[in-house]
Structures are given as structure tokens and as C-alpha cells.
């Protein structure tokens, strides 16, 4: 085998390249360098290229956005439960911020409801869950788990974060523009998104540039966010392919890394068509093209002054080509986190690790061929509908295999119910409910009844709210000791867990009932003016109460998170007695991660190996 260090020196460069395959020669050198690494404040905390700091930046920014998205939906929930009433405490204050047109007398106007709805979806998905579940955990954990000193392209990594940050700030800034934010939902369906938010409407001055109206800003900041995830996913895939430590073969890689690899592939290939679509919609808005404006479109009784010839369905296809894989972008990192925690706390290897890996990969591939099940009611023919029904039912197979394998992993384990494990355990039924309620939606005849009702809202929130969020919480409680050297409080953690579990179900379970009763998801008054919603109207109040409860039960988490940094119980390098490589680093890991050469000698979850001295056999310990 060629020694790269020598090849570099031969080519005229300094022989400084360190290499995993020659740990014995290089280890001292590597250690010295780590000691010399002493950046200033700005390059350490702000413009950092260290994957751990970037991961933490993503985590904090993402949690803030999750909170903002949550606040938005709380305001909406109040309007749904008590339509037309002044929002207590914050109503009049909001009137000052967003203007009289949107919050007249502290009461939410329909346009502002639409704004909040669009922003809740966008913020939660693109600015909250993806950055936390994928970027934060991925950045922090993946290089550690595969035994790499950093990501492959640290500078790209930094660019990825700042592109995300810019996109997020821009998105939030649109609240303060004339006319407010985008109002087209997170899906931004044409043609309403193209003709809405124009100068001359909603109090936007006629001279205001179209590029600075809410919907245009949504599109521009989506381009930033897509750029960010593109840079991130290129980096993740390259890192996982290139920087695995010696001995870390594909089938010795922790399942979390597999989940991240599949997620990164989905982001890489599914996002660009949406970027193309965003560019085209921006052209439609700013340069008045007709990509998504069909012939003969009439607005307010007047034919739209455009060439026409476009297709509204084209937008939906390009959007859902991303939109559906995006669901798996949200859930796969969660599955990865939960799998690590379940294996660790049942003190057992994951049941059928290989089938988990293959399932994750097949979910990733299948996720690209199911998107049109969001579009059954757009006049789709039977052949196509039959195809998408088949693929949609097919994709439930690997998903069920994943959940089943995780469930069977509990069998015969000596289970420790600490806070991360509580969240991971609750994740199983939550994701299960979310997944199983999705199966009816795979069939277009049932969708006739359920399309765009609260049933759909309940279904996908079970997947992405308790599903993804419980995994995120589990992950935070689980890896917090590695990042800070202190454990989070179990007491507050349990309160957070049980409160959240009850409230989450209190919010989303009644939605199934409302949805089956025919309640539409976009009613601004929560159905108060619709006869058919009368029997399920009282549930609106219950849901809103549960949402408030959920907010209150996040307070212990916020307290726990910040206080534990300073007063949490101190712990060693491997507080959970875990087996994967990240627990082999000093706590918190230094720049460059590993102080000594690292290699993987066995599979990722070798717990309770018969004959082993302890109930866990770490990957980094050679066989004796």
C-alpha cells in the first residue's frame, strides 16, 4: 500500500499528512498539533470549522426556530379554539408588531392566520427539525462515530451553517415586510402563490419591489436553505465514505450513521428539483413568466395579463418530488438516534441490524417514487394512481420492519429506563400511530373523504411531532454528557417526558376524530361557521389546552438544558457504558476528536457478549 505521507513529500509538499493506516508513526505528531490548536473567540465559537461547534450552532439555532414555530402554532390554536376573540396577553402587542391589518384589536385576521400557517410549516420543517435532527446530530455525532478527525470539508461545513442561518433570518425578516410573510402554506401551491402577495394588495405599496414581498422572500430563502443542505449532504456522504477509521467497515458502522447516509442522499437528490421550481416560481413572480400559470386564468373577474401556457401541476410535482422524501429526511435521523439509544439501554445488540440497514436504504430509494399520493385529487388518471398506491403501500413494509426490529430489540433485555430511553420507548408507539394512520391515505378512494382534513394533520404530526421531536429529545439527553461532561437532570427529564407524552397525544389524537368528521385543515375559524363541524367543535378547545400544556412542559426542558451545563452531575467519558466510537474521546472532545489512533474492532452494538468481562464490548477495544 502506498504511503500518502510520502507521496505528498515526493511531490514537493511537506510530509505532514496524517494517516489512519500508520497510527504508530504519527500519533505523537497528531497529539502535538492538537495541543497547539488555540483559535480566537470568533473562529472558535462563530466562524468555526470544527464539526462539533457547527453541530452545536445548528442545535441552538434549530431549537430557537422550533420554539418560534411552536409559538406560531399556539397563536393559531387560540384562534381555532376561540375564533374572533382577542388573544390574551400578546394580542395587542402583536398588533403593534405586525400591524393593524393583521391583528386588528389583538384579534387574528385571516391573512395573518395564513401567514402563521405557512411559517409554522416552513419553520418547523426546514428551519427546525432538519437542522436539529440531521445537521446538528449529524455534525456532532457522525464524525465521532466513524472515528474521523472532522468532516471531509470543514470550510464547506461552515458555509453550510451560515447559508442556513441567512435563509432562516431572511425567512423571519419577512414578518416585518409590508404585506407580511408568505401565505401559501409550506407547499406554496401555484397559482395562488404566484399571484398573491403582490404590490397593491394587503397594504403593500405599489412601488414596493416584488422580490421583497413575502412569497418571494420565501422562495429566496428556500434557495439559501437548499444550498445549505446541499453543502451539508455532500460533506456527510464524503465523510462517511472517506473518513471511516480503520476497521470501520460498512457493516460495522453504527445504524445512526447509516440513517444519516441515506438522509444525506435524499437531501442531495430530492432538493434540487425544488430549487429549480423555486427559481421558476421566482421568475413567475418577478419577471411575470407563466411556468405555473395556465391559459385562461381569471383573477377577481379579470383575465390574468400573462402569456399562459404553464402548468400548476408542474409545481406540485416538483414540490412533492422533494416534499415526500423530505418526510423521510425528518424521520430517518430520528430512527437512527432511537436505535442507538434502544440498543444502549436494553444492553443488547440491535435485533437484526442488517435488516434495519437494508430497510433504511430501501425506504430512501422508495421515498422517491411515492410523491404523487399527495396529489390524488388533482385529476390524476387511474393508471398513475394505481402505481402510486402500490409504491406507497410498499414503502410501509421497510418502515414496519424498522419499527418491529426496534421493538423486538427489547425482548429479553435488561432495560434501563433513563430519560433518553423513555423518549426512545415512547417514540415507538408514536411513530407507529403516525405510520399506520398513513396507510389509509395511500388509497385514493379513502383520500376522497380524508384529503386536506385534520386526519391528515394528525397523521403527519404523529410522524414528525412526537416522532421526530421525541427522537431529538432522546438524542439531546443521550449525547449531552459527551458534549458538556455533565448529565442532564433525570428528575426534570422525567417531568418533561411524561408531560410531553400526555400533551402530544392530547393534541393530535382528537384530530383524527375531527378529520374523519370532515373538518378541513385550512378553516380559519376552526369550523365554527360550518354545520358539519358542530359535533367535533368542542375538541378544538381540548386540543388548544393540550397545546398550552405542551408548552408548559417544555419549561423543565429549557431549564434542564441550560442549568445542567453548569450544575449537572459530572460524568466520565462513557457514562452510558456505550460501545460506539464517540464514547472513546475525551469529554468534551477536543479539536481533532481523538487523542490516540482509533480503529473499530467489532460491530457497533456488542452488548452482553457471552464470556466478555463486562456487559458491553466497545468497538475500539481489540480482542484479547
Amino acid at each position, binding site marked *: 500500500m502506498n504511503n500518502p505521507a510520502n507521496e505528498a513529500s515526493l511531490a514537493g509538499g511537506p510530509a505532514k499528512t496524517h494517516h489512519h493506516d500508520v497510527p504508530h508513526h504519527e500519533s505523537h505528531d497528531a497529539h502535538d498539533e492538537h495541543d497547539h490548536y488555540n483559535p480566537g473567540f470568533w473562529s472558535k465559537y462563530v466562524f468555526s470549522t470544527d464539526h462539533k461547534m457547527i453541530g452545536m450552532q445548528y442545535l441552538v439555532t434549530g431549537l430557537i426556530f422550533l420554539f418560534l414555530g411552536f409559538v406560531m402554532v399556539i397563536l393559531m390554536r387560540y384562534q381555532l379554539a376561540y375564533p374572533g376573540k382577542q388573544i390574551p396577553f400578546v394580542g395587542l402587542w402583536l398588533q403593534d408588531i405586525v400591524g393593524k391589518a393583521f391583528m386588528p384589536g389583538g384579534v387574528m385576521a385571516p391573512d395573518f392566520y395564513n401567514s402563521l400557517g405557512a411559517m409554522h410549516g416552513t419553520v418547523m420543517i426546514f428551519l427546525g427539525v432538519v437542522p436539529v435532527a440531521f445537521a446538528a446530530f449529524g455534525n456532532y455525532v457522525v464524525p465521532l462515530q466513524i472515528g474521523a478527525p472532522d468532516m471531509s470539508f470543514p470550510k464547506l461545513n461552515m458555509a453550510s451553517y451560515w447559508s442556513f442561518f441567512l435563509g432562516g433570518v431572511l425567512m423571519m425578516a419577512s414578518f416585518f415586510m409590508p404585506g407580511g410573510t408568505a401565505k401559501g402554506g409550506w407547499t406554496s401551491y401555484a397559482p395562488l402563490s404566484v399571484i398573491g402577495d403582490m404590490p397593491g394588495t394587503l397594504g403593500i405599496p405599489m412601488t414596493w419591489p416584488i422580490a421583497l414581498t413575502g412569497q418571494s422572500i420565501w422562495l429566496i430563502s428556500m434557495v439559501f436553505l437548499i444550498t445549505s443542505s446541499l453543502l451539508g449532504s455532500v460533506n456527510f456522504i464524503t465523510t462517511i465514505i472517506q473518513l471511516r477509521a480503520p476497521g470501520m467497515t460498512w457493516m460495522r458502522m453504527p445504524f445512526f450513521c447509516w440513517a444519516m447516509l441515506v438522509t444525506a442522499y435524499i437531501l442531495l*437528490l430530492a432538493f434540487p428539483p425544488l430549487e429549480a421550481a423555486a427559481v421558476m416560481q421566482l421568475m413567475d413572480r418577478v419577471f411575470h413568466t407563466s411556468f405555473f400559470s395556465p391559459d385562461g386564468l381569471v383573477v377577481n373577474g379579470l383575465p390574468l395579463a400573462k402569456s399562459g401556457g404553464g402548468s400548476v401541476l408542474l409545481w406540485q410535482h416538483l414540490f412533492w418530488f422533494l416534499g415526500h422524501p423530505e418526510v423521510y429526511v425528518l424521520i430517518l435521523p430520528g430512527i437512527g438516534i432511537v436505535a442507538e439509544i434502544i440498543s444502549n439501554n436494553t444492553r443488547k445488540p440491535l435485533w437484526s441490524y442488517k435488516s434495519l440497514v437494508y430497510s433504511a436504504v430501501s425506504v430512501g430509494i422508495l421515498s422517491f417514487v411515492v410523491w404523487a399520493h399527495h396529489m390524488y385529487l388533482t385529476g390524476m388518471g387511474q393508471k398513475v394512481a394505481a402505481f402510486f398506491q402500490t409504491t406507497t403501500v410498499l414503502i410501509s413494509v421497510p418502515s414496519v420492519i424498522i419499527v418491529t426490529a426496534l421493538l423486538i430489540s427489547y425482548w429479553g433485555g435488561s432495560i434501563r429506563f433513563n430519560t433518553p430511553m423513555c423518549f426512545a420507548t415512547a417514540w415507538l408507539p408514536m411513530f407507529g400511530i403516525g405510520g399506520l394512520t398513513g396507510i389509509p391515505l395511500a388509497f385514493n378512494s379513502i383520500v376522497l373523504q380524508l384529503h386536506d382534513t385534520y386526519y391528515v394533520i394528525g397523521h403527519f404530526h404523529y410522524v414528525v411531532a412526537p416522532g421526530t421531536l421525541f427522537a431529538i429529545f432522546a438524542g439531546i439527553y443521550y449525547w449531552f454528557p459527551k458534549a458538556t461532561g455533565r448529565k442532564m437532570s433525570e428528575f426534570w427529564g422525567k417531568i418533561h417526558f411524561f408531560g410531553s407524552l400526555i400533551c402530544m397525544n392530547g393534541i393530535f389524537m382528537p384530530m383524527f376524530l375531527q378529520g374523519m368528521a370532515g373538518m378541513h385543515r385550512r378553516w380559519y375559524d376552526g369550523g365554527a361557521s360550518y354545520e358539519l363541524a358542530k359535533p367535533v367543535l368542542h375538541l378544538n378547545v381540548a386540543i388548544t389546552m393540550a397545546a398550552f400544556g405542551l408548552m408548559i412542559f417544555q419549561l423543565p426542558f429549557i431549564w434542564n438544558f441550560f442549568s445542567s451545563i453548569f450544575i449537572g452531575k459530572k460524568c466520565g467519558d462513557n457514562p452510558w457504558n456505550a460501545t460506539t466510537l464517540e464514547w472513546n474521546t475525551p469529554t468534551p472532545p477536543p479539536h481533532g476528536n481523538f487523542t490516540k489512533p482509533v480503529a473499530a474492532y467489532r460491530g457497533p452494538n456488542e452488548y452482553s457478549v457471552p464470556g466478555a468481562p463486562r456487559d458491553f464490548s466497545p468497538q475500539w477495544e481489540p480482542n484479547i
Partner: protein
Amino acid sequence: MSELTTHTAEVAEHAHDDAAHVAAHIKTYLAVGGILLVGTVITVLLSYVDFGSQGRNIIIAMIVATIKVGFVAAIFMHLNSEKSTIYRVIVMTIFFCIVLFALTGLAIFDPIHLK
């Protein structure tokens, strides 16, 4: 350290091979450049020939374009002798690109028949 010296010698030979290898390919690069220019002229000329329908002209032009692209990819982008990791990425991308075209096309051109 003797082990390292042998490595150095090996690497030196390897680098030398590399340069010779590249030098041998220069003629190929120029030839491909010529083929591409000729291909461009052919594309333009073929578009003036009426093959019976617009559709046939499009198909023929796309075949010529694909051949040209094939040359660029195989020779200029070294895909004629690349590593398997790259091939895997490309195959996957082409697959999903076809999915994007084919399924969207299917869905748009198989609407419900209202009768």
C-alpha cells in the same frame, strides 16, 4: 524506516507512470475535441433535414447530443476508467432523474377522463 524508503520508490514510480499515462492521453483529448466540434456541425445540419415529423427530429438530435455527452463524460471526465464509488453515485442519480421525468410525465399525461 527501510519500509518507508521502499514506499517512496514505489510512489515515485507510480507518479512517473501517472505522468506518462496522461501524456499518452493527450492525443485522445484533442481527438475528442475534434469529434465534438464535428458533432456540433452534424447536429445543426441534421436539424435542417426533415425526418418526417418534429418528434423524429427531436429524437435524432437527442441521440447525437447523448453521444456527444457520452464522449465528454467518458474521456474528459474520465468516466471510462473511474472508481466504483463514482459509478454508484452516477447510476443512482441517473435512476432518480429518470424517475423524475417518467413519473411526472405519466402523471401529467394520464388525467382522469371526464365523460
